[in-house]
């Protein structure tokens, strides 16, 4: 039992992201309201962001801003050690992914407004009814 718990604890970040991812996916598939679907989509994307950021973490590392330097006299300063800082690359990537998520959200909302203007509702089943009629 303890082994399982420690195993889960060691992989907790993955569990968290998978659960979030599935929550988002479930909302996107099942929910009837388009805005709820959009919210699901955002959760879905956020889960991936969580995944990336969590893989950058190192136990005992700090944020990747080199402590002693201002860059002007780098020669006399001690070189930064990789172990001391967490992995900066996933953070960079996720800045991009966040921006992409925001952009997608904006476009999705714009489309939802268009849909609402067209059909007067955001419930998918009602829209389908109107299309068939």
């Amino acid at each position: 039992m303890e082994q399982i718990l420690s195993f889960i604890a060691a992989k907790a970040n993955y569990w968290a992201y998978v659960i979030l991812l599935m929550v988002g996916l479930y909302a996107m598939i099942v929910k009837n309201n388009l805005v709820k679907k959009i919210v699901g989509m955002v959760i879905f994307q956020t889960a991936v962001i969580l995944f990336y950021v969590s893989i950058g973490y190192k136990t005992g590392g700090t944020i990747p801003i080199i402590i002693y330097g201002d860059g002007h006299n780098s020669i006399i300063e001690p070189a930064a050690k990789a172990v001391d800082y967490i992995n900066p690359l996933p953070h960079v990537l996720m800045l991009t992914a966040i921006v992409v998520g925001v952009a997608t959200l904006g476009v999705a909302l714009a489309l939802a407004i268009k849909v609402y203007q067209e059909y007067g509702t955001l419930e998918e089943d009602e829209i389908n009814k109107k299309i068939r009629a």
Partner: protein
Amino acid sequence: MKTLGQITVLFCGGLLLFFTSDFPDFGDANSPASLHLSPYFIENTLKDTAVPNVVTAILADYRGYDTMFETTVILTAGLACFLLLRIPKREVKSRYYLHEPTGVTLRFEGDKYPQKSDVFKRIDSNWVPYDLIINFTCRLLIHFIQIFALYVVAHGHYSPGGGFQGGVVLGASVILFAISGNLRAAIKRFGEKTAALFSAAGVFIYAGTGALCMMIGEHFLNYNFLSPLLGTDRIMARSHGIFIVEIGVAVTVMAVMIWIYYNLSSAGKQDEGL
């Protein structure tokens, strides 16, 4: 649909969880991800770019090309919302005006409405009287928010922050103004054309800097070649180059956030809105 969703979710989730068993543990300093590229960045960023904040350096220099397109993504979203939603000059069926001396609200049909008047004040159809506290607090706060935003932009080299963060905060200040007052007042101060021009200009600053480097020197976005223009050595030129593009990013992000807000909040009419 519900069962289908459940099956898909359970299947995908199970699969994803199953495969995590081989993944490196949380916080493992010896995972491949932490051993291949990231040590290089941590150890050499200062030497290469004279920027202590590794994230900023990677963002705007090593992977600066990515970030340029990231900014473009924002611009794309702004353009997309504009293209999808904007309805220019729609004839408004009726407008509401508040007669300020008496506090009477009047409804005008068609195009018969008071043009410029000291006593009549246009209000939204779902207008509620302004809350003085909110109004006052926001007016007070907006200046500080904006100054903080500029700080965030400027200090991206040394602390968490940079163009995106600063730009978003700047945009939020204008959006706060629009929410606390009304949309028209915000548009009067920061017009739609301004927003569009700023959002294009920000990316232009970024891509233009890149193109300038390419024209002077060799590679797109290689800030080294800016050193003769900036009058610094090649390493510092990188640091300054990063700052220039961060400003571009901030301008675009701010303008697009505002632009998207204008379009979304008024469903493209930009007449009445939140």
